[in-house]
């Protein structure tokens, strides 16, 4: 459909959101991501039966950690959508970008380098959304 969405979104592909490790989410913030979200199948429609439900739990857990370390849990999100929902994909990308813009850069970066980078959001997505 070629609907446009913000350029700061970069996609990392996994076979199923069930593969998304808490480690990946935290590492992304450590490296300097300003926001991360996970896009999985609609609940109940997981290609691998239950992967997306497990992913959601892990995302919730990682949010807590981010909150505790002061990065902020709202920089991380989990979304569910089907591969036929192009407009929804754009909506999510825009929504997430807006949210991260409001929050400003990932505070971790302030400790490492003084320059303010462009806001960056990465998306960890399932195979079908590649």
């Amino acid at each position: 459909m070629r609907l446009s969405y913000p350029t700061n979104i970069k996609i990392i592909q996994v076979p199923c959101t069930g593969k998304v490790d808490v480690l990946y989410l935290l590492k992304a913030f450590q490296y300097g991501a300003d926001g991360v979200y996970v896009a999985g199948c609609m609940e109940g429609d997981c290609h691998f039966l239950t992967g997306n439900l497990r992913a959601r739990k892990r995302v919730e857990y990682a949010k807590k950690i981010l909150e505790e370390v002061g990065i902020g849990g709202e920089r991380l999100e989990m979304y569910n959508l089907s591969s036929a929902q192009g407009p929804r994909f754009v909506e999510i990308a825009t929504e997430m970008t807006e949210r991260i813009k409001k929050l400003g850069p990932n505070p971790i970066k302030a400790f490492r380098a003084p320059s303010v980078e462009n806001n960056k959001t990465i998306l960890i997505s399932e195979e079908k959304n590649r």
Partner: protein
Amino acid sequence: MDEKVKTQQNLPSPVGAVLVIGGGVGGIQAALDLANSGFKVYVVEEESAIGGKMAQLDKTFPTNDCSMCIISPKLVEVGRHLNIEVLSYAEVVRLEGEPGNFSVQIKQKPRFIELDRCTGCGDCAKVCPVEVPNAFDENLSRRKAAYKRYPQAIPNAFAIEKRGISPCKANCPAGIHVQGYIALIKQKKFKEALNLIRKNNPLPSICGRVCTHPCETACSRSKVDDPIAIMHLKRFVSDWEYSQKELEVPRVETKREERVAIIGAGPAGLSAAYYLALEGYSVTIFESSSEPGGMLYWGIPEYRLPRAILKKDIEFIKQLGVEIRTNTPIGEQFSLEDLLAAGFKAIFLGVGAQKSTRLNIEGENLAGVIPGIDYLKAINSGKELPLGNRVAVIGGGNVAIDVVRTAIRKGTKEVFILYRRRREEMPALPEEIREAEEEGVKIHYLVAPKKIIGKEGKVVGLECLRMELGEPDESGRPRPVPIAGSEFILEVDSVIPAIGQSIDLSCLSQGKDWNISRRGTLVVDPITYATNIPGIFAGGDMVSGPATVVEAIGAGREAAISIARYLQGMDLHEGREKKLPVAEITPQEIKKHPRYHPPKISVTERIKNFQEVQQGFSEEEAILEASRCLNCGICSECLQCVDACLAKAINHTMTEKYLNLKVGSVIIAPGFSLTDPILRAEYGYGCYPNVITSLEFERILSASGPFQGHICRPSDHAAPKRIAWIQCVGSRDQSINKGYCSSVCCMYATKEAIIAREHDPEISATIFYMDIRAHGKGFDQYYERAQKDYKIRFIRCQVSKVIEHPKSKNLIITYVDENGKIVEEEFDLVVLSVGMSPPGNFRILSRTLDIKLTPYGFCQTDPLNPMETSRPGVYVCGAFQSPKDIPETVSQASGAAALASEVISLSRGQLVTKKELPPEQNVTGVEPRIGVFICHCGINIGGIVNVPAVKEYVKTLPQVVYVDENLYTCSQDTQAKIKEIIREYRLNRVVVASCSPRTHEPLFQETIRDAGLNKYLFEMANIRDQCSWVHMDKKEEATEKAKALVRMAIAKVSLTEPLVEQELSINKRALVVGGGAAGMVAALGLADQGFEVVLVEKENYLGGNLRNLYYTINGDNVQEFLNYLIKRIQTHPLIQIILNGVIVDAGGFKGNFKTGIMSGPGMAYRKVEHGVTIIATGGEEYKPKEYFYGEDPRIMTQQELEKKIGKKEIDPKNFQEIVMIQCVGSRVPERPYCSRVCCSSAIKNALKIKEINPSANIYIIYRDIRTYGFLEDYYTQARKAGVIFIRYDLQNKPEVSIEKEGLRVSVFDPSLRETLIINPNLLILSTGIIPRENEELATLMKLPRTPENFFLEAHMKLRPVDFATEGIFLCGLAHSPKPLTESLAQAKAAVSRACTILAHDTIMVGGIVAQVEKEKCSACLTCVRVCPYNVPFINDEGVAQIDVALCQGCGSCAAECPGKAIQLQHFKDAQIIVKTSALFKEKVA
């Protein structure tokens, strides 16, 4: 040995290929099964892409899966399968031969785009100016003439739709792409329009003014209003060009040595010169007069064709290097021989028709008689030639008109035209005649000159005769006949004959045998314009006789083509015949729209001078006028796509092709067409825009549909709040010969209502229905949810009419409610649940294939052989067999594949292609050497992302040893190049930065594998779908993002490792569990394919539930069939039967199962090794607790009744009052499902009783009668036979009591609105089907079950007989309740699915699977709990083990493993983390 196998051996071996007709989901499934079982498959699809109706659906019931999401992987598999050849745009035209050896002829429509070159980028569609209704969106949106049916289409290629040659082009003597340039003008592409005109006509400015425009005569618009102003539009673009600062002269590609001479600088000569010069020839025109242009200069007055305009077109030609030598008449100074001697290699003659035809009457030599042409020549050369005050011009052609109008402008007071026929026959253009009259010319019709009267050698008068019209002459016009004695005299000062011109052939060389016609014209080949003298060609008036400018131009161009071919030694004729038919448009298709008329100078103004009379269009008018074009040919042949396609895939010269194939068997899966809703006119479809079909609504719901998934109604695109569905439109309707039930409409309407409510909770949804037929697995629960959770209103009634509110376009539905009251209700949108009809071409198909049809036009089959057609070797599946849903279609498709392969099983593997691969390079421990290929994708990526900049950037990245950019990385030549570069640069990792891995990763993986690299040493960066396509307006940011994506891919690929798939041998034995109908048919099916079968039955006899059935609804004898099956199975050498068998343990995986069975009276244990398992454990009739069952011999179930009748234990003649109660113990909270068979069983038994005892009163007390498909006919028959149907609902169940005097049933009849009391002699309970005890088996084999304990298939829609565990299949009642015929289809389907494994000697396992590092595992059981497929287990060593053959590769275990002991191959933690980290490392160290 089996008899069948023996006969086959005596015959020549069958052809190991199958033809599948129809590329819908049925055809796709059949093709995949067959191709995966070792057969070559041809899929013939009439559309440009496979996918069928399923691709058009939004969601599927009852799981609400996205239809496209689930079919798309199948499409890709078909598209990439080595042994499936998809023939799109094709149809079968002939089928001959016998099972095992058929000859098929297939007609393939031209696609106009080369499949092997098209990359699917869509650049052709982007530039295509023609929009047509998009059939894929049910005409709710528009698409281009260059199109792909839908984004995921397979073949992944565009096609160009043509209806034929547009009439305008067909009628243009020069063959100009008229529709094309009109379309381009509409798009404001004026330069392109002009370039297109010049492809066939180098004199556009001239033809924009003086053409006789036969194109307009042919224009389809003239059938209803005025033709498009084609000539004026041509003039508009040429004027537009004139207004530009510089003319853009086309580039001559190759300069050639040879010189060509052209005689005559008229339109034919100029045209020939232009096209020859374009070809690179050096061209010299020899012109006898002082000015080039021929009749255009000398014959056409300036007020029609200003000299500057003429000059402009001639200058354009001269700029190509054409030399025009004026005042150089041939014949006097030099001859044709002299030219040849001077080195001209070919000559074109275009000297025209210069001589005026004489009147041949007395007085023609008097002073004052001036031939028309001579007069025009004189005036046009600036001479004065006074004619006096009264002038008679004789003739009715354009020259006559030119003369009179010139004479008026020269001051002549009175001018007459004398014409011997009527105005209707006048050859001059009507508008010219009109303009002449406006200027004061008088025309005398039916008058001919007899004698010119002179005085002193000068004209003074003209004696004329009046004429009348007689019989038509050879020109087809009525012949003028003089009226005797009608002579009269006109006083005139001059007489100008303008009755025609003749040809002066004195230029031809003497002494040669020229072929001259009787009319004095030079004869040439009509296609090539070659004269009979080699090297000399001719065209224009000297060949055709006096004709039009555009004819001369056409002739000049054709001759130029011939001359070029002649000089290059090519065949002059080849490929020059016209191929496409002329596109026809009926007047009904055309909406009136008045023509725009450009202005003219006023009469008083114009007769004073020679200023151009006709003015041109303004830009706005031109565009509006161009928009009137009807696109008759669909593709306008504007040829924009040819320039836009950088892959050079467009080929407008393609023609229809005929292919001859040999196949062993045939499967027809042509699907269905929608029943035309116009058949039910009272619903207003076609008149009211907001009455739509269900398929239209599917497209509206679809996110990729016409409104991007926003629910809008067609009239005003407003969001509807009240939507109604009307069921049974074109179904269950004998009045239109659609007496059958279409089986799917109740469910799809329910689904559409649910999805609509999910889109917009404010929508209220109402479904008007007769019976809700939710008879499939999980359907009734879905229907319940629709009512309870989604608040969808179901109203049982028949809608009598739909009326539109004229202002709001809302719709008022009138119906009779359950209380008998007439109700009117208003809705915003009405969806008609249209039924299924046979496919559009069903009659032709049945004739071509010689198969029998049912009276409804569906394919005739036998219920006991549901996939066999009347022609041996031809099998059927899907909706063409009878209306059905997707899972049943898929089952039948697999079943048909089993039958089709059975016939040819001896040739399994003979025609399939297997790839030979080079050994893999060892890359362990070798430093990564990465090659990166960046794709422009035409302009899809390159137009946005700065590819060269990305390339330069990538060069700076570590480990990258090679970077290149390609126009299309996926093109075939690039694949070859990639392989070469891998070898040359010793690459051991490859990254392609292009499009989606979903469509292209397998291709590139195959390429690197061909070059000796493991396919996992590859990574893709999607810089198109994720970058250029979605960041079109941000070129710089897109380029930066592309760099990041490539950097990430490179980081990951550097850590990828080769993955080795393990090869395991396959045990070719099958285990079938269950000896009922399904199990036996499955066992026989496999054995007939040559595989060993072990059949386990827990009872000590075969037959299962089939033993309880005696006759089918259509009268087949079931017990006979059962005995036949048992006999065959007992005698089959490949089948081993284990009776009293119980499965006690199970293990292994696909290809290598091990199952323990205890059997016999002693319960002996044995282990069976097998490659596949088929579960057919069956079901049985529910024995009710309701209605005193078991307490009274007069109360029994349907099966018990059938058995008693079948065994003649009771005589129906003895029973006068019989009550049957439906849904006993079904569709109730304990068993919420419909058993699918009980309604038809009740009707079957009722009809049986009526047959024996017609006077019996039979009452069937029902909730919904669910006689889906053709079973509906039996319902109709039962009602006709007098069976009484009384409806009840759960709140008002019938009450039964046993009284002294007999049984008593009381039931409330809603149609009579009172309670009926019946005292039946028999009370028959229609109870449902329950599965046989299967819990232990399910646990042992880890097979999932539904809450009702039926087995649960891998996917409800597309894998109906597969378990999620590979290698295990199911069929029959174990899957869900179903009639015998469907169980048989499923059994065959299971056979086919099993064959896809058994056909192979080995399987490859592994690849992307999870692996446990033993040392790290603490056996915490997390993985065991997490795995959705129950794969991990703790092995003898006390650590987790994951079987590579069973792992599905989702990675859930790896993500959850607390010790990080599990890694998913190819997605290892390090690989994903390095990719993430690369995203943030902009500066490379």
